[in-house]
């Protein structure tokens, strides 16, 4: 009995573990259907998933305070396009400066989102929908630095090589950058007072306020972090794909949110772990990479399968969590 109890309470503590099981199961299925899939594709999964991974870290912060941001991919495209246009015009030639600029643009838009949402008391869904339309519409406009999009010839060779053609321990810098952002987010959320306050505001805002936490400041901070991560993702996108335009990454913000929810993050705030988010983001990247390889059919069928896989993964995860929660209650004789 006591042994069982400890296993279940371990599962309760680590809600992301069942997801790891689901991921392993899906990998096994795909590997049977496409022999050698994992051996050939693991690096592509990591590379393609890096950009979403970075945005997931920002999204986690926003979800923790009980808010949401659906402008992330619009911010990605906007920050990438502005920085890319500046490089095309010869204003910026330094790779590092591109990343700094991208993060700054993203953080500024995120801060506006946060201020409107907290001090302005507009629901975050609408605020971020509004900003996403605005910044996307700005991208092709002529008065904004001319070009209506960014293509490879406008970028310096050094910038295009920066994330893809430099490797450390066999992994390109693109992947290392995502790992770095994950580690920083983990340290921030788990070991700093401000980071813990994100959880406090999301789980019980009144209690947090009583303890002297400034609610609005924390919410603005969360949105600023999310915007900054999206801005960084925009520069990563530009360095990886060497092109960006108005429609880039449209709709992908939903996969960022899906990855977080798959990873056990509560959309009502207060609960969520970076480890779960990492597994969730890997799962989404894996689904994106595996479906075309399975050669099931045309694009309509692959989208159908993608939807089914997402639902399957999240349902299985929810069921496993519920069983372990029930066992936990039984274990305590409730």
């Amino acid at each position, binding site marked *: 009995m006591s042994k069982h109890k400890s296993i279940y309470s371990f599962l309760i503590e680590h809600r992301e573990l069942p997801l790891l099981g689901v991921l392993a199961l899906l990998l096994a299925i795909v590997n049977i259907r496409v022999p050698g899939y994992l051996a*050939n*594709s693991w690096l*592509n999964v990591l590379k*393609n998933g890096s950009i979403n991974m970075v945005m997931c870290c920002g999204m986690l912060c926003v979800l923790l305070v009980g808010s949401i941001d659906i402008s992330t991919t619009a911010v990605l495209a906007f920050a990438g396009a502005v920085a890319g246009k500046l490089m095309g015009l010869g204003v910026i030639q330094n790779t590092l400066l591109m990343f700094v600029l991208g993060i700054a643009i993203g953080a500024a838009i995120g801060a506006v989102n946060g201020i409107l949402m907290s001090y302005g008391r507009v629901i975050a869904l609408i605020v971020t929908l509004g900003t996403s339309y605005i910044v*996307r519409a700005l*991208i*092709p406009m002529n008065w904004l630095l001319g070009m*209506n*999009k960014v*293509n*490879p*010839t406008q970028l310096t060779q050094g910038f295009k090589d920066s994330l*893809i053609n430099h490797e450390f321990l066999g992994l390109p810098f693109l992947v290392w950058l995502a790992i770095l952002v994950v580690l920083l987010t983990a340290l921030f959320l788990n070991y700093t007072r401000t980071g813990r306050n994100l959880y406090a505001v999301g789980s019980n805002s009144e209690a947090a306020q009583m303890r002297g936490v400034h609610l609005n400041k924390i919410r603005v901070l969360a949105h600023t972090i999310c915007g900054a991560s999206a801005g960084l993702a925009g520069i990563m996108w530009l360095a990886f*794909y*060497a*092109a960006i*335009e*108005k*429609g*880039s*990454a*449209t709709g*992908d913000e939903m996969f960022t949110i899906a990855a977080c929810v798959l990873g056990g993050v509560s959309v009502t705030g207060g609960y969520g772990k970076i480890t779960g988010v990492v597994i969730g983001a890997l799962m989404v990247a894996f689904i*994106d*990479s595996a479906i*075309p*390889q399975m*050669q099931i059919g*045309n*694009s*309509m069928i692959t989208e159908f399968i993608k939807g089914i896989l997402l639902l399957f993964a999240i349902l299985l995860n929810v069921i496993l969590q519920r069983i372990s929660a029930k066992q936990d209650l039984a274990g305590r004789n409730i």
Partner: protein
Amino acid sequence: MKKVLALVLVLSLVLTGFAFAEDKPGKGITIGVVYKQSGNPYFQAGVAGFQKAADELGFTFMHDGPDDGSSDGQIRIIENYIAQGVDVLCISANDPASLVDVCNEAREAGIKVVTWDAPVDPEGRDLDVEPASAKVIALTQLDSMVKSIGGEGQIAILSAMATAPNQNLWISFMEEALKSGDPKYAKIDFVGVVYGDDEYTKSFNETQALLEKYPNLKGIIVPTTVGAPAVSKCIMDAKRNVKVTGLTLASDMKEFINKGIADETFLWNPTELGYAASYAAVAFAKGTLTGKAGETFDAGSLGKLTVEAAADGGTITFLNKLNIFNNETVDAWINIL
């Protein structure tokens, strides 16, 4: 005396007005332009053609396309134009069949429907304006690929949406040619079509899958402008010796043409296409064109264009101009396309 002067002034003003009206045959005509997707540079270049023709002919035009490249988005835009009372619609259709009803609604309201770039089915249009016949476009790409890979090896196609009418027609001509027994295609092994949905990342992922599934793949034909740079970038990152050809913008492909990933790519000039569609639209509005096979109309700097019977049962006009982008020509085009 003052009265006489005033009269003279008024008369001269009126006369100049008439003179202007005569100079600009399109004055007072409103055209509603609908394209596949807003923000797509290809269609922005198309709109530049409408603008050029508007400057010459004096008509006014509005332009719009759905964000998501959907047919229902286009239907809403067309209904909006009907309500605003445009004289002619110039449409590049995301789906040939689903716009037929709304186009006929427009025609019942006295609006002429000219399609350009991608047609609506013949029962829903008055005339279609296209760059070159589908067969010419298809075989130009296929023959270029055969040349690039030295006449031998595995090739694949990465297309746009699975429902895209242009791409499907071109692909069917390519498949037909490959099966025809023509000796120049005898050693070509066609492995199939994948769809990138005109999304950069989806096209990229599909290319990765192709490269992994076919280690001996020699070439990918990409008959869509959004897909081509994604496919080329993916091949470049994978450091594979796979050739690309297709329909592309010059500015998107310059880097990959210079690096030898693509030997040559093709495109008509969408600005000329929009320009020709404008001249057809104005001729329709003035009643000098009815859209029957054998008619001709003046298309400004493009000269006289002829209406022909189309393969789908409607009528069509071809510009018959396909530009080649290669190491020598690409630089001259990057600021245009």
